[in-house]
Structures are given as C-alpha cells and as structure tokens.
C-alpha cells in the first residue's frame, strides 16, 4: 500500500462487508421464516434478496428474519421497513419478486406494483 487512495479503496470495500454491524438505521427487509414461509420458498427468496443487494452494492439495507406473521396462505411474506418506520408488506414473493423489491423499492423508492396485499 503506497497511497492514501489505496487505503480509502480498501476501506470502502471492507465497509460494505461489515456495514451491517453499524446499526445506522437503514432500510430493513424482513423475511418471514416460519415453517409455512420456508415451505413456500422464503429461504430462496431471502437468498435472492441478499444476492441482489450485493449485486447492486446496496449497503444501507439489512435483511432480517422473523417468525410467521399469521397469514400463512400469503407466504412468502416480505416486509420493507423504511428508516422512517413506514412499513410495506409484500405477499407471495418468489425469487424474482425479491429482486424486484430490491430494485424498485429499496433502490428506486417505489412500492412494487401488484405484489402488495
């Protein structure tokens, strides 16, 4: 390492990896991971969301799991909670839907059409 810019580059790269420890109040994506959710494919959905966040270098959103939300019929259920506390519930979210949530809601700040309740 011979320059400050190299240091800065390494800092930003690593920050992306450890950003989720910072608790800086970004967007939360909560995937319901009850037995019903897992059976309906919530795990695959969640993995797709994590992969898409990585692809798009989003470091202000974190992925959380929760238990069953009570509407097992609508699984997989994904909630997006803005830093303001505003909550959007998406239902029947498959892997494609997960990617759309990342791109349209988390990145472009628009509620995804046709996936809400």
């Amino acid at each position, binding site marked *: *390492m011979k320059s400050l810019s190299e*240091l800065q580059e390494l800092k930003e790269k690593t920050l992306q990896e450890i950003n989720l420890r910072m608790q800086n109040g970004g967007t939360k994506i909560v995937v319901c*991971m009850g037995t019903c959710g897992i059976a309906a494919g919530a795990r695959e959905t969640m993995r797709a969301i994590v992969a898409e966040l*990585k692809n798009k270098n989003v470091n202000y959103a974190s992925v959380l799991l929760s238990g069953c939300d009570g509407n097992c019929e609508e699984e997989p259920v994904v909630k997006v909670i803005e830093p303001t506390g505003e909550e959007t519930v998406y239902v029947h979210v498959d892997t494609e839907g997960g990617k759309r949530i990342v791109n349209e809601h988390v990145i472009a700040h628009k509620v995804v059409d046709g996936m809400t309740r």
Partner: protein
Amino acid sequence: MDMYRAHVLVCCGTGCTSSKSPQIIDSMEKLLAENGLETEVKVVKTGCFGLCARGPIVVVYPEGIMYTHVDLSDVKEIVEEHFLKGRVVKRLVASDEDSAEIAHSIQNLGFFKKQMRIALRNCGMINPENIDEYIAHDGYAALGKCLTAMTPQEVIDEVSKSQLRGRGGAGFPTGRKWSFAAQSKGDIKYVCCNADEGDPGAFMDRSILEGDPHSVLEAMAIAGYAIGSNQGYIYIRAEYPIAVERLRIAIAQAKEYGLLGNNIFGTDFSFDIELRLGAGAFVCGEETALMVSIEGNRGEPRTRPPFPAVKGLWGKPTILNNVETYANIPMILLKGADWFTTIGTEKSKGTKVFALGGKINNTGLVEVPMGTTLREIIEEIGGGIPHGKKFKAAQTGGPSGGCIPAELIDTPIDYDSLTAIGAMMGSGGLIVMDEDNCMVDIAKFFLEFTVDESCGKCSPCRIGTKRMHEILEKITKGQGELSDIDKLEDLCNTIKIAALCGLGQTAPNPILSTLRYFKQEYLEHIVNKRCPAGVCKDLLSYIIMPDQCKGCGICAKQCPVGAISGEKKSAHVIDQSKCIKCGVCMSKCPFKAIKR
C-alpha cells in the same frame, strides 16, 4: 467479496475465552454448515465487549441482539431458532436487572448507555486479527494524514492542543512528553509502549490490545513520525498470551500492507515495531525499569533526571506511553483536538477506561467521559452491588492508589479531583468494596503485593514496605497498639519522599487513604480488638445465642472441626479453642441463632 445477511460476533477476550468462546465458535460454524447457513451467516471473533461478568458474549447483527452466558449447549438453539427461523432466543438475551423487557439492541442496555467509547471504539466491533476491518473503521487514516499532510511539529501541536494526559496513571501531558523527545538531539530515538499492566484487578490495556491492536501500532508510528524515530518497542507481559498473539498477527499484517516498514505511504518515513515480553514484575511498569528490562538487564529503576525523553532506551531519547494513551491518538488526529477537548472536564479531557471489579454486578470494562461520577459508574453502568449490600468504598489506582469512601461517591472522576481526595486515577483498576470488606485488611493486601514486588534496590521501599506490612499484620491479629498508627503514618510519609521510583513513592497510598477515611476501623481493631466487617479471623468469634437456638444440631453436623456440642433440643455451644472461624455454622443455622 462475501455478502452475508448476518454477522455473529463472539467475544474472544481473555475472560470469554476461558469460558469456552472458541469452542462456541467451532460448534456454531459446524451447526451453520449442517443447516446450510454457512453462506448467509458469518461468525466473527472479536475482542472484549466489556460485560465480562456475563460472558461468554455473542452479539448478532444487523439486529444488535446480545446473548449472554452462552453455553456450548445453547448454540444449537441459537442456530436453529434465530439464524434459521428468525426467532430470537429470549432466555439468553441480555436485559437490565430491573427491566422485565429484553433489550432489543445492545445500544439499549443500561451498561452501554452512559459509556462513551474512544479508546475502546473498535473493541467488540471488529475482528482484531483482520487488518481490513480496522481499516474499514478509519484505521491507518490518521497515520496517512500525518505523513502526507502534516509536519512532525504540527502533529505534536495537535496532540498538545488536545490536552491528552497519560492514561498509565500519573497523567503527564502527552504532547509535552513528545515535544521534549522531539527537541532532544540524536540520530536514533525510540518509541516505547508500556503494556506491562500489573495492578491487581486491572485489564484495560490487555483488552485494548486483544480487541484493537492496530490502533496502538498506528499511534506508535505517528509518535515515531512526530519525534523522529524509526523504531518502536512494545513491552508486554508474557502473562497476556492472547494479546501477544494478536499483536504478532497485527504487526505481520501491517508490514505486509506496507503500513509498517520502509517508506510508509510512499514517503521517506520508515517505522518498525518489535515486541519485548516481560516476565511480569510489577516494577517493570515503571518507565526507567521498563527500559532497563528491554535492554536485557534486570528490571530495576534508576534516578531521574535524566528523563527518558533525553536519555532513555540505550541512552537515546525515548518516549514511553501507555496502551490506552496510544489508543486515543488516531482519533485525536482524525477528528481534531477541538473535538477531543469538548469531552471531559476542564483539566482532564477525553475519556477513561476502567476495569470494574470487586463487589459489583457488571464486572467488566467500561469507558466513560472524564468527570463522570463514581455513583454513575457503580450504580448505573456497574448495575450496583450484589445481594443488596451497602457500598463502602472504591479503590482506584491499585497498590499505588487510594480509596474513595461512600460519602464521596459523587466525586467526579478526573485526575485532579481524585488526587485532591487522596486517591489517584491510576491506570484504571476500580475495585468496589461493600460492607463486608475490612479496610485494614485491604491495605494489608496491597502492601503484601508491594512487598513482593519491590525490586529491592532502595531501602525505603525494600525495608519500609516490609515494616508497614508487619504493623498491619499485627493490627489485624489484634496485637496492635495505639502507637502503631503514628508509626505507620511516619513510615508512610518518609517512604513517600525517600523511595527511588514510583512504586515505592506510591506504596504508602493505600494505608494513608484508609487511615484518612477509615481511622475508626483501625482504632476498633486496636482498642476493642474487633473487626467490624468480620474479615480478620483472629478477631472473630462465633457465638450461639442460647435463647434463639432450638437445638436442631445442624451446626454441630456441619462443623468441620467438631467444635460444637450440645444436647438435642437444647442450646448448643461452640468451643472457642477448637473453632477455626470458617463461618459454616452461621451460614447453615436455620434460626439465625449464631452471631459473630
């Protein structure tokens, strides 16, 4: 780059390591793999979180949930419930004693709320064995800034302006120390780090080195640039194997990245750091003895002046700072002296790390702004005294320090307030004592330590501490006379001015301060041959109250020496000539009929 959705931080400080945190990591990684979660959840080993009393500690991000007292057998439940299904294992989540609700984030815990972490900023946040994580938290940015945008004089000016004082105990202004060394003429100069933490009950420096070793390396390189030195030494005791290991790893990584070595950041500045392991002699924490020991000789102090800044290691100008002092340096240079001086009191700026120990619920490591009161540390951060006992005194500064009695609990903790009341900041050991502690016995304990650790070079310390210990021994055995108190005071005041180094000069402090605040307790031992706290065994006797004794015989069965006798259903008696004062009878009596 790997992207995980969750990071599990497992404390691998000395405390949690000895309660099996490395095995918890192994088991967790195995179970994560069995459940197909190894690409989603990353296990990270970190340094100390500070809440050592409740270790092993596991913190899960992004939620910030803190699990405490995690047993190897709990790992399966955490993996299968929390990581697989998102259900927090409530029974293991840390909560405040007085709160029925679990803390949903580590930040909401009372233990952390009042703290302000500068020296400990990265402890429990990063993997100390991964330089990248330190860099992500602005690591080595301060060194970069100094080398490329500041002159050595500007670095010294900034440190002086911050009013940072040495955290090793005496509180000498760091900037002034650096400026003396910078002014000294010489082709070779040295930068040393004092990691010979020897006070009983102190573990601040160890925790910083275990949790964030790079912050000390970075600060030493900055100091080297400031005074014109190319070589640093860290003097650390061999009894800190984890800290030594992590320092070795950190030095190797910094060298690999070119952050130590030749032409750092492409400039003319080169700096290297070596470790020197000490054998654990307390006197080697004294600066001149430490340097003599680095040179390979027997660790004995020498007279000052000349001060190390003029003639130190191998006769060359040297600066020696404590671990915690160094840990503050990068932040001061990054955020500026003006930021640092907003924290703390008029003459003590910044924060101080304390190792809380003794009779306190949250035994562990805390960092608070200077000026925080002892009450806030003990009651709010420390969670109070166990079993509802009453606070009696706190000892700061270990064997060199003094005690703060209960009536001064609202004293703001800074260098000058503590000196004014006869205690001292010391390196940061804070031992809390309750009504069951005998102050004469405490003074005797610390004196026993200094008698053992005195190097023997000067007679006031070698002979004087021994005599003082003998007098204390006599008092606790009930053979004290009133003239002993005058003799003690006489010895204390003489040794204070006559001893060669800091060890001897401060050795009388525990006696002077207990005499100042607890003279009545000394008199009680001497005049009435009684130990009010019930600690000094020779002054104790256990007596069965005949009117309260129901003659159940439990005490007689429990007594290890058969000193208790009596008929069934009638009052028992203790044979004082056989009694060894273990107190078992008193603790077992169902009718509380035994008094001491």
